[in-house]
């Protein structure tokens, strides 16, 4: 997981998608981009998890998926599993807490589409 400094613009070089955007409808546009930026306007608004899952699982998007907005340390395990590979934490969050959050679980009970493709794609 890449941590984007809170001082640098998260959207640089990325297509910014609102969390109401229908990612399947915008496949062509998305595939032309090296990175997309998904939004958490409130950290408890979980729409962007499903957007990321569709990007990786349905569209086989291989570019970078970034999370920005209200990104809390405790969201990191969810973000990673749903296919995000870069985050800009909310300004008050500690990177060390986020890294620790990634380490609690060594097993999981289910797969989400991005994980299903991991074994097949070179990524």
């Amino acid at each position, binding site marked *: 997981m890449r941590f984007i400094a809170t001082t640098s613009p998260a959207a640089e070089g990325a297509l910014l998608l609102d969390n109401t955007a229908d990612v399947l409808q915008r496949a062509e546009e998305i595939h032309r981009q090296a990175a997309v930026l998904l939004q958490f306007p409130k*950290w408890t608004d979980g729409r962007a998890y499903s957007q990321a899952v569709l990007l990786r699982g349905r569209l086989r998007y291989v570019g970078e998926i970034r999370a920005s907005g209200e990104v809390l340390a*405790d969201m990191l395990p*969810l973000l990673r599993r749903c296919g995000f590979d870069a985050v800009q934490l909310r300004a008050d969050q500690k990177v060390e807490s986020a890294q620790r959050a990634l380490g609690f679980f060594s*097993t999981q009970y289910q797969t989400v*589409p991005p994980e*299903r493709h991991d074994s097949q794609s070179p990524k």
Partner: protein
Amino acid sequence: MYAYTDTDRQFVRARAAQYRDQLARHLMGELPEDDFRPLRLQNGWYVQRHAPMLRVAVPYGELSSRQLRQLARIAREFDLQDGGTPQERGGFGHFTTRQNLQFNWIPLQRSAQVMELLADVDMHGIQTSGNCIRNITSDALAGIAPDEVVDPRPYCEILRQWSTLHPEFAFLPRKFKIAVTGAREDRAATDWHDIGLTLRKNEAGEVGFRVAVGGGMGRTPVIATEFNAFVPWQQILVYIEAVVRQYNLHGRRDNMYKARIKILVKAEGQRFVDAVNAEFAALLGEPSTPLVPQSELDRVKASFPLPTAVQPPGKAEPAHAPLATFDRWHQRNVHGHRVPGYRAVTLSLKRAGLPPGDVTADQMDGAAALADRFSMSELRVTHEQNLLLPWVRESELRALWLAAREGGFATPNIGLLTDMIACPGGDLCALANARSIPIAAAITERFDDLDELHDIGDIDLHISGCINSCGHHHSGHIGILGVDKDGKEWYQVSVAGADGSTLSGAALAGKVIGPSFAADEVPDVIEAVIATYLLQRQAGEHFIHTARRLGPLPFRHAADAVRRSTAAQA
């Protein structure tokens, strides 16, 4: 019961460690209350009127005596406070309609320790609150019911595992409840759930699920719509993934009262069904989408064997000498069983002096001892907030009855008026508009004559302290709803609701019988409503039949006649 593997144990321990870290960061000030709240909710910690409430998951209602003893220990050592009325000193738990157990008095500072004690007996509070997929509920007679088509427990366990810490579905628009049944009789109120699953067999004998989506109570009671008449069991997780993904993307988030999936199903209708079916087809079209393998079903199924000691007896049991009190208990609290010579027995948690569903620490130990002696150390939590012993030998019913009487569990009232469903209400719950416990107590006191109760017969009385409907007032044959007007408690009464059981008929919300009543009028109103039924009933009619035949009006007139302080407004 499902036997936890090392992986399951490690998982629950990891969850307890993660929670300890979050709590520490909260107490140090790194994690402010607004951010900590959703995290603690998803571990069952809900800050209530007096202290945090802890809701412990009892997956599909299966509980071992060892687990119940640990819950007793937690009640005794952690659920405490000094002073106040006996109700306010803690030391007890409350079983809910969703087969969970709630504590009310555990200080937040000790919460991480309690999570570790729960993990010691394979328990937790994962997803018992918050906007996520909640504890999976089922038929309390799962695996033992004579009318069962398919044992739902292995499928419930597979669903439990799938839904546990699902990374995509942890922050849905609103809570999401799934109930599963595999019997002809629906004892899990499936049509009132966000997803109601009914196991069935097709003509070829293959197992699948009827999937109904979008049921729910609250301000807008809605009965679930059938989305698919038969999803093969191997595909059920894929189907649910499709439903929940569409809900996560399209459910309303601007208004919490319109955020449940029922609103989306109502507003979008066939378009939403089509969206789910398209997502389902897309997932099935991806070769990497996993179906549930037979080997996994077999592995989980192996956790639910017929206990080896359970053997149908070779010859008929000797008949007991008749005894009226025993017969009455036998008639109400003892249920049929798929194994000849065995019975399921309800331990009533509906008795004078204690709120419906409540158990003290000593009573938990008492129920655990009964389970050890009579039921292979296993218990079930029922949707109606009682405990049930699933493996009782018919020949031991008399001994069990005597022991259950001793422990205060033998009130012969299962299915009767005093076997009411009630939420904790305003005495404990911060959301409640009004108290439920004194209303339940007053009705229990009013109807303390067993002959009268048995004459009134089968009836569902459901009491909620607010419109969140934890006490399922919508589905009660008689429903009571606490409402707040000008800072005072009032109660709305409805009749002819149905949970979807054979007795009640198809799931349906009850009809309100006039403006709300004052608290002290409620017992009289219930008495007047019951009197109307007794007067008007035709041969063989239960309350619900009479109520449906007559409609709400005669009940309204009878209730109006006993108004006192509210007489002017009616």
